[in-house]
């Protein structure tokens, strides 16, 4: 009993904070005015401690303290304190985000090969007008528009302010616009679709001014998109003098290389892991 009395006395002396007499609404929406009620009719100093703001002011009448919406723009847990000569009373309350009004969209990667399954990811973060993450579930509509084609839309429910989607890249190279929409907010990102690996590589022989050249047909991927200039094509020749490999970059859609041929020769072509046709040629004696 004695210990209990001592504990109560120590607790009373240590803590100037009295039992919570301030009453705030259980939940307040960010940016809206509201009133904190108190049993304290005398004035005092009112403190508001929030996630991004601390305010302090003298109040004449402690029984009804008006808090302007400007002071609670950030969502989160707030502590209100009213201090007078008798000590301080306090309460905690939660300010929830207002309705969705902004989006942040992360689209990845910025360049992608055509016809790659689930190669593009888009993550949308849903914010209110005060940049608070809207944690209540909300429907986000994702859109993908390639060139003049009709947009493709899919809806996802944001959990904890985040919605995401994976997309397969289209078959034609060129930009694809990836967007997310919620209420008045819309964000767009552009992902560039580029040709994939070369496909159906074809080479042909050419004689010009007594020299032997091997050149490819226009190098395209399996969807018919021209591979970018600079893509390396390897030509491998086997003849009496041995085996030689020459790398040549694609220029204006084709790769071309001069190869001296000694007698009968076999020539192969490859680009990355893709191989093409084989040529059997006879060199000029």
């Amino acid at each position, binding site marked *: 009993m004695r210990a209990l009395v001592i504990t109560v006395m120590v607790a009373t002396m240590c*803590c*100037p*904070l009295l039992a919570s007499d301030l009453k705030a609404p259980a*939940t307040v929406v960010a940016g809206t005015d509201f009133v904190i009620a108190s049993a304290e009719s005398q004035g005092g*100093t009112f*403190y508001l*401690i*929030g*996630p*991004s*703001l*601390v*305010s*302090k002011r003298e109040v004449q009448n402690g029984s009804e303290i008006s808090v302007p919406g400007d002071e609670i723009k*950030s*969502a*989160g*847990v707030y*502590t209100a*304190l009213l*201090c007078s000569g008798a000590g*301080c009373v*306090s309460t905690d309350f*939660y300010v*929830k985000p207002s309705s969705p009004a902004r989006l942040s969209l*992360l689209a*990845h*990667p910025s360049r992608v090969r055509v016809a790659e399954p*689930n190669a593009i*990811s888009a*993550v949308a*973060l849903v914010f209110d007008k005060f*940049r*608070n*993450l809207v*944690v209540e579930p909300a429907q986000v509509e994702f859109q993908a528009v390639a060139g003049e084609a009709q947009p493709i839309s899919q809806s996802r429910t944001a*959990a*904890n*302010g*985040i919605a*995401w989607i*994976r997309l397969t890249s289209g078959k034609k190279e060129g930009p694809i616009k990836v967007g997310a929409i919620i209420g008045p907010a819309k964000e767009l990102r552009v992902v560039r679709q580029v040709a994939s690996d070369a496909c159906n590589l074809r080479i042909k022989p050419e004689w010009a001014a007594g020299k032997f050249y091997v050149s490819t047909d226009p190098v395209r991927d399996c969807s018919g998109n021209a591979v970018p200039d600079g893509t390396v094509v390897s030509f491998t020749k086997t003849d009496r003098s041995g085996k030689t490999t020459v790398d040549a970059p694609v220029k204006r859609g084709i790769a071309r290389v001069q190869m001296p041929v000694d007698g009968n020769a076999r020539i192969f072509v490859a680009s990355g892991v893709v191989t093409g046709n084989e040529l059997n040629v006879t060199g000029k004696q």
Partner: protein
Amino acid sequence: MKLLLLVLAAALIAFYVGYLHADEPAAKIDLNTDTLGPRTIEELTEKSIVRDYGLAWRTLRDALNHNQPGALEGYFTGFAKDDFSRLVQSQLKTGVHVRYSDRNHRLTAIFYSPSGDAMQLRDRATLEMQILDGTKLLSTQQVTRNYLVLMTPGADRWLVRDLQSIPEGRP
């Protein structure tokens, strides 16, 4: 003799470093990744998240305790940095300040973007929160706060981009 001097110097440095941080024990941080998706987390990333989140809280504590918004530079970015910078500015303006002492963080990673450029976590933090007006202590509370945390990778560390407290009981 030279070796003895070196050992003594090392011991002195270790003592000094320990002394500097004696009043700021490192908070205990646990990270649970059992329900994380859609991307799986690598072991190294897990370690970085725990380390950098702990350091972010440490810098937040310093920024608020000493009214130094510059302390936020290292581990905060985006909205989180803006919000806490505003908090420090209002502390300077009013003379009121909040002193956090974080004891424990129970982190649950809940979303890791497919491309690895954002991670969302939930933190159940045990904190001591003191509110001071000048040097006058107004309130001391032991609180458990729940936070939604958004972290994004920087050049050599993970940065806190958003840190929003949420009410108790949110799933």
